């Protein structure tokens, strides 16, 4: 898994870098301390040897002009013998006494060897007395200078050779202590040098470096193994499990077999992450279930509403022509509900052989509540109308029935007409409904501004006013609800009765069925893309007479 490999490499490489830097710093500090301490030790030992060696030098030995004299030779032999003993027993590589030459040129290049001894370990040739050294190495110059010019009582010169160089003359690390031999005025007469090989230091240091590297290496491996193991179990495995679980959930959308917080029992952020993912999964699952249930319920309601719409549509007379044996008139009606179920309705039926009742109505509001009220209103009107009576008597009675227990404040506008088919006499009551439209034979469509009464179910005890007019053969009547008159386009303009009568007059000679289809199309054209807010219901009657 790429994710895991990368994370491990990232974390472990960080650890390696930190440990390597730490190891370098520790080595460097240890190395320096170590060097300094051993150097001091060598220095003090060399210094002691130098002081011991100096005790053998007498002023006469230095000031003597005749080096061939027996006295001088005698002293020379003693010094050489004692120094040799010192060098052999105290492990001094090289003990010597130099006299500076060319003092007047202020240089430290040329020295005369007065006396020198070496022990067996020395990598040099013995300088015999009287030999002139012409090229004193530069590294000694500051030391000599401090003795001759600053009056120092000793000088130390440690010389480290590059351990990795291929130098043939490699003398190894060594330290030289220089001691001035002065006269009574403090002038330096000669310089006594003791050189010691720092073999122990050299060995110890390379051993130390080897050990430090070895120890750090072992430590590094142990730490990496331990830390890697810890990372794997404490960090990477849990994170991998969380990542796998998140992927699984995204794929399957189901609750896990074992919740993450049970397989990852950590109190740190990873444990919290596991708990959060558990909670998130549970929440998402329950949201999905809720949504599924809600969607199912919505679908169910939609299906039920569809059935309700069909039932409602079936309640309205829909077979045309409805009375094929009656040739005195033609009737046609349509209803287009705005929602699945609507509050508009129309109805027509004979109350006896000669009287045709015409009803068009609009219940306030829409949807299921309006549809329920519509069913009651329609049933009550038809029942009451079939018992006989004038339109106002019928509406008076229906109004009182509908007012009982109408706490929701529903009301219904009704236009109810009763046509005496034999004579064409039409009595009607308009309970808050739109004005009917009439077209006399050969004339134009125009509104009948009939006497209005309040809508049905507004208040009990209402008396409804009656209107009457006479239809003559060839006359037509157009009834509609506010879905037509108050159809609204996208600019919020109302269709209005003026537009409506103008539209009716554009189709003067169409039979009722075609006229209603044309009128629906006229309204649709006006409304355009705006949604249909109201039920659109129309009913048309053409009277032919006997």
């Amino acid at each position, binding site marked *: 898994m790429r994710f895991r490999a990368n994370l491990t490499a990232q974390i472990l490489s960080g650890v390696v870098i930190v440990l390597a830097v730490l190891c370098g710093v520790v080595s460097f500090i240890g190395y320096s301390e170590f060097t300094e301490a051993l150097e001091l030790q060598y220095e003090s030992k060399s210094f002691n040897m130098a002081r011991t060696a100096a005790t053998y030098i007498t002023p006469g030995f230095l000031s003597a002009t005749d080096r061939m004299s027996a006295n001088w030779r005698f002293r020379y032999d003693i010094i050489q013998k004692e120094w040799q003993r010192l060098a052999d027993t105290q492990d001094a590589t090289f003990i010597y006494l130099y006299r500076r030459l060319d003092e007047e040129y202020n240089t430290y290049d040329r020295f005369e060897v007065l006396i020198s001894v070496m022990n067996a370990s020395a990598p040099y040739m013995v300088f015999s007395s009287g030999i002139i050294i012409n090229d004193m190495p530069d590294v000694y110059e500051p030391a000599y200078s401090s003795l001759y010019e600053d009056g120092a009582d000793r000088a130390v010169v440690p010389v480290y050779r590059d351990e990795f160089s291929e130098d043939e003359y490699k003398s190894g690390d060594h330290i030289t202590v220089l001691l001035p031999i002065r006269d009574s005025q403090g002038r330096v007469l000669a310089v006594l040098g003791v050189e010691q090989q720092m073999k122990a230091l050299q060995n110890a240091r390379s051993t130390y470096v080897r050990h430090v590297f070895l120890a750090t290496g072992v430590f590094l491996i142990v730490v990496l193994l331990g830390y890697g193991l810890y990372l794997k179990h404490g960090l990477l495995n849990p994170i991998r499990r969380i990542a796998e679980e998140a992927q699984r959930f995204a794929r399957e959308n189901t609750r896990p077999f074992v919740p993450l917080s049970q397989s990852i029992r950590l109190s740190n952020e990873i444990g919290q992450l596991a708990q959060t993912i558990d909670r998130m999964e549970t929440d998402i699952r329950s949201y999905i279930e809720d949504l599924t249930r809600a969607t199912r319920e919505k679908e169910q309601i939609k299906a039920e509403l569809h059935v309700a719409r069909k039932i409602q549509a079936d309640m309205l007379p829909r077979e045309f022509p409805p009375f094929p044996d009656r040739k005195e008139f033609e009737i046609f009606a349509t209803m287009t509900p705005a929602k699945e179920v609507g509050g508009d309705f129309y109805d027509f039926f004979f109350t006896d052989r000669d009287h045709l009742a015409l009803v068009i109505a609009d219940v306030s509001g829409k949807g299921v509540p309006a549809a329920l009220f519509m069913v009651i209103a329609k049933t009550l009107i038809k029942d009451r109308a079939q018992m006989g009576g004038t339109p106002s008597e019928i509406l008076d009675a229906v109004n009182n029935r509908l007012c009982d227990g109408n706490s929701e404040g529903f009301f219904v506008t009704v236009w109810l007409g009763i046509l005496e088919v034999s004579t064409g006499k039409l009595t009607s009551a308009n309970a808050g409904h739109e004005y009917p439209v009439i077209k006399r034979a050969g004339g134009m469509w125009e509104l009948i501004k009939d006497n*209005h009464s309040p809508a049905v179910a507004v208040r009990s005890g209402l008396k409804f006013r009656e209107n009457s007019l006479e239809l003559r053969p060839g006359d037509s009547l157009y009834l509609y609800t506010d879905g037509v008159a108050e159809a609204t386009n996208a600019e919020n303009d*109302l269709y209005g009765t003026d537009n409506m009568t103008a539209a009716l007059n554009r189709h003067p000679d169409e039979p009722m069925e075609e006229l209603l289809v044309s009128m629906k199309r006229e309204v649709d054209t006006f409304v355009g893309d705006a949604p249909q807010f109201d039920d659109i219901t129309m009913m048309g009657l053409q009277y032919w007479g006997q």
Partner: protein
Amino acid sequence: MEITKTQNGTELELALEGRLDTVTSPELEAELDKLEGVEKIVINTAKLEYISSAGLRVLLSTQKRMDRKGGSMTIRNVNEEIKEIFEVTGFDEILTLEA
């Protein structure tokens, strides 16, 4: 539609602006549902453009509620368009209208 509400003691005035139709009448119904301690309601229709049967139903049920608790409801500043709707539906006989 916009409803501006002003309460003055037990008198509540609601100024309606725009169209009171199927879509907007539930807003008015919600406003009129909280009528604790209101004895007089004034509906200002000066800026109302249109009222549908759903809007009329809200006014009617409020009128009935106020009748039951002995309060009153007045429709104020009824303009020509609204007046015509009230007349056609016969609501001018049921509601108390002020020009």
